[in-house]
């Protein structure tokens, strides 16, 4: 019995992806770029979207899932509005990143990769952000925060929340 989930209405508006399907869909080696664009548009990669992409570019959904699950950048669960990337590189580890993670997890009340109930935050550990001289470091919205302490990390989260409340 075939899967019919893609027949019904999709969870996201695929019209937005059309120009990129045209650009990368047939191109040699374009799959990763296409998936990156899709995630940029929708924030995550729902299964029905992936099946739809597979059908459109003529590859098996399993192949797409293989690529999506191989790379850490791709998310198959929705992410919060603010993605917090906690650096767990060597320099950050030596300078106490484990404690920062503890404080962030405690404050947000979720585990790594989970979204907070209000949909504001998801936090992810990342291997290295390459700002080692400022360790420990975290990144959110393209901004890097360095020299973190448990307190300053929580303060930054609170500031983001305040920005949202306004």
């Amino acid at each position, binding site marked *: 019995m075939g899967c019919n989930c893609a027949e019904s209405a999709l969870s996201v508006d695929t019209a937005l992806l059309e120009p990129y399907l045209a650009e990368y869909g047939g191109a040699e080696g374009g799959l990763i*770029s296409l998936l990156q664009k899709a995630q940029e548009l929708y924030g995550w990669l729902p299964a029905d979207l992936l099946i739809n992409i597979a059908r459109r570019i003529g590859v098996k959904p399993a192949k797409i899932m293989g690529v999506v699950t191989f790379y850490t950048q791709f998310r198959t669960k929705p992410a919060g509005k603010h993605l917090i990337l906690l650096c767990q590189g060597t320099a950050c580890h030596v300078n106490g990143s484990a404690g920062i993670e503890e404080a962030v997890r405690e404050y947000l009340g979720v585990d790594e990769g989970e979204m907070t109930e209000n949909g504001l935050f998801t936090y992810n550990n990342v291997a290295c952000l390459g700002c080692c001289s400022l360790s420990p470091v975290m990144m959110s919205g393209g901004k890097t925060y360095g020299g973190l302490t448990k307190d300053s990390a929580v303060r930054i989260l609170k500031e983001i929340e305040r920005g949202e409340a306004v």
Partner: protein
Amino acid sequence: MRVTVGKGSCGIAAGAGEVFERLERDGVKPAVTGCIGMCWLEPIVNVGDKTFVRVDAEAAGEIGKYIRGEENGAERYAIRQEDLDNLNAQVRVALRNCGVIDPENIGEYIAREGYAAAEKCITELTPERVIEEIKASGLGGRGGAGFPTWFKWNAARGSKGDKKYVICNADEGDPGAFMDRAVIEGDPHAVIEGMMIAAYAIGSDEGFVYVRAEYPLAIIRLDIALRQAREKGLLGKNIFGTGFCFDIRIKAGAGAFVCGEETALIASLEGERGMPRLKPPFPAQKGYLKKPSNINNVETYANVPWIIRNGGAAFSAMGTENSKGTKVFALTGKIKNGGLCEVPMGRTIRDVVYGVGGGIKDGKAFKAVQMGGPSGGCIPAELADTMIDYRTLAATGAIMGSGGMVVMDGSTCMVDMARFFLDFTCKESCGKCAHCRVGNRRMLEILERICAGDGREGDIELLSGLAEQIKDGSLCALGQTAPNPVLTTLRYFKNEYEDHITHKKCTARQCKPLLTYSIDGAKCTGCTLCAKKCPSGAIAGEVKKPHRVEREKCVQCGKCAEVCRFGAVEVD
């Protein structure tokens, strides 16, 4: 007077954006530069040949007055002479323009002899002559292995095929390393020019830069540089009025450490899972889309224009017998002056840690330096006089690697360090080889057990045995080198493993389950803060009287030591 603000990723994180805006508001028109490497002094502002460091908005106001010739307090922020001396003691080849030119302005690169080397190669030299020059320089791959660059170029040139590719590996994945990010953010044209020369040498008309997705600013700067080069006719068709055509595209990685391995990188470029494959065929024979491809690292390409302009002999005059030229290092961890530096091969680890780096933070004792990331190892302080040279470093069990140097003091537990790297390798193993996929997982479990206080007699032998099997049984360098952090810590810090296993002690006081907490009655004021914060109710005592830890209830979380304002909690 030229005013510049260092706006690399680290400078921006330290507040360079606010400083830049403040200067603009004050009517100064500053230019942007990349990272000069003195990350511990960021944000940095240059006015003519004067350098101001740790500049905040207030300091920027004073600098504005200094520029306008008004009375000012800018001198307080002037760089210290010894920091300047440290910078001048470096030899900057790959970093020659970083922190000096505006990376978003091709004119500034050209003004410093930019693209002169590419023009010379394409209009005057034969491809064979270019490869000869690179051979004379002794340049080795800066991604870590040090493989002779000319050899790769020559092989790609010799491969039959009408279509060939030049690929730049900017998938800088070693945690604790950021040399390539700094080069692309600070001097993207040097990389483009190096790739152009490689393309001419091997006979290619198309190139890719594979950049980590975690480096958004590098991608932006590279994109700007590529567009400007195209506008100037330096990329595209009939470059320098010759029939030579070449262009470059950016491919953003999607987060997989193993894609730094060249065959995995090619698979990823092709849109596949980044799994390494057996070599031969080498990429020079069958690379991207099965066409001959030349892959070099960012720093390798950045050296190339300098070599062509100054001659291979000038490059090989620096360094040691088997390691020529200079190397860029990212100095981080428990170091006083963390940042980026470039020194000639042949200097010692001590020169870098104490000379450039200013020694250990807070005057503590130097314990070890980790070189080469997850493929490398920990070199103990006793070997600080080891020369920076591919062979000498390999003899210690570590490797030169891509240039990450993470410095450690007595508060770093070496067993935990080995566990940290294995945890990384386990997450990043592509899963193709059983030894790497399963063997590393087993090693990690043993290390986790040791750190949790459940180490057993025989664990050390078990780890050593597994390490050798993983080295032999893995296809790519990620698996083959994954046991190195364990092997080097076992070699130089075996006593710490024994302390954990036999005596259930962590002398660095990092492995919490092995620690015991007690309260010094003489120092405790009975403020009750620790008792309130203790999650297991293990602290007893009356207000204003010394408290005590009830061992059987304690979960070793360390909260009491963290919150105590009187230093009364003793950790052992």
